[in-house]
């Protein structure tokens, strides 16, 4: 059960990190174009 929970949290960490990464890149683009 603990292993399953850790895997779900790991999956969420990865997806959220990737979303954050895209957000940082979009902010960068916004700054560069302005």
């Amino acid at each position: 059960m603990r292993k399953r929970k850790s895997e779900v949290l790991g999956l969420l960490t990865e997806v959220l990190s990737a979303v954050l990464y895209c957000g940082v890149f979009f902010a960068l683009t916004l700054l560069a174009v302005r």
Partner: protein
Amino acid sequence: MVIPLVTSLAMSEWNPALDFVISISVSTLVGCFLMTVGRKTRRGEVQVDWKYGYIIAALSWIMLMFLCSIPYLLSGHTGSLLDGCFDVMSGFTTTGLVLTQDLDHISTGLNMWRHMLTFVGGQGMVVLALSFLGKHIGGAYKMYCGEGKDVKLLPNVKNTAQSIWKISMIYLLVGTLALWICGMSIGLSPLPAFFHGLFMFESAWSTGGFAPNTQNIMYYHSFSFEIITIILFVLGSLNFGLHYAIWQGKKKEMVKNIEVQSFFITSFLISAFAVLKLSQTGVYTNAVSSFRRVVYNVLSAHTTTGFGNVYARQFANEWGDFGILLMVIAMLIGGSACSTAGGFKGLRVGIVFKGIVADIKKILSPERNIRVEKYHHIKDYVLDDPTVKASALIIVCYMVLFAITTLLGTFYGYPLADSAFEAASVSGNVGLSIGVTAASMPAVLKIQYILAMYLGRLEFISVFALFGFVIGGVKKLCVKH
């Protein structure tokens, strides 16, 4: 081939179904023959050493290229066996360049086959065989390494291979669902939206770049579709060891890992320079179009995915030499080691960079100081000279391959920038095209591109072992006679 066959039957595509029946029959016959020849190895009576592990991995890719091109050839959508082999190698190596004609009208079964090839190729064919074959295989770890994957997630290589598949299958469910819902929200009917979602997931996760239509990702005209695919291909380009570590609860790896740091820095710098240049020249003037057209393509190139949301010739006509050069650099660097991505990998860039910094520090510090440099990749490693040398050697091999492929392109009359772009795309297993790859291009160039994709994917060593073995055999024959 059973899955595309079932897909064809379910979609009432009788001719493609027959193509798959023929292909399955031929493959089974060849498989039975090889199993008879190699029965001693199968029983574990013969020890497979490193040399043969590499050779088996390299040869299995060539054998599979021919067998898997049969459905292409029977479909009538490829001009020749060479074109079929090109597309199969492009799929297996997760490159994504296409010579198949009339992509918009190929059957769902063949589309399933194309995208399965790229999905399976991303994980590795040896990984697939190790995951699903019940028995212990002699020399399994050596073949696994021969496929360019050298990270052991678990002590047992079979369990490692199964873990790789488990990670991919969970993402398959999550990613397909996300793209399916997104597809329906942009106006696709539920069934086509499902297939588009599945195919685009397989391509994005395996950093492949195939799409079920000629226009690639542009077909969807959807920012949300692009955002989901960016997330998927960035995740797909990460090391399987890293996925496994994070899923085991080591969340700090996402920040501390040398590959993540290297990828973040290089993609950040390349994107920033590309956005600045292309907004200055007035090609893309607002933030949304700059992000969608520039950052998307840079990340697609850097992760070696190959989804392109500008037309091939736009790179040549709008991006200019500076933009093309940035894309070439991104394509050559590529994603992470032991991932679905190609290129010479962020890990090696990080190691060589740290090696250079360590050498400079060594020169500047007092002679009696002994410095031990380390890098973090799942755990701490000492940065020693053999590690730096091994990484530098692979980078040199990639550069030589890139130079030879560029040279051949220019020999056939393509402009230098176009040749370099396409050479980086095939060497780094990316799949973005500037317009060189076409069914009408010279056969020698097609063969060179197949070779470049193959060498780039297997990271040279296995293929060199195969070449050495063949040359050694020929030499022995010459001496005998």
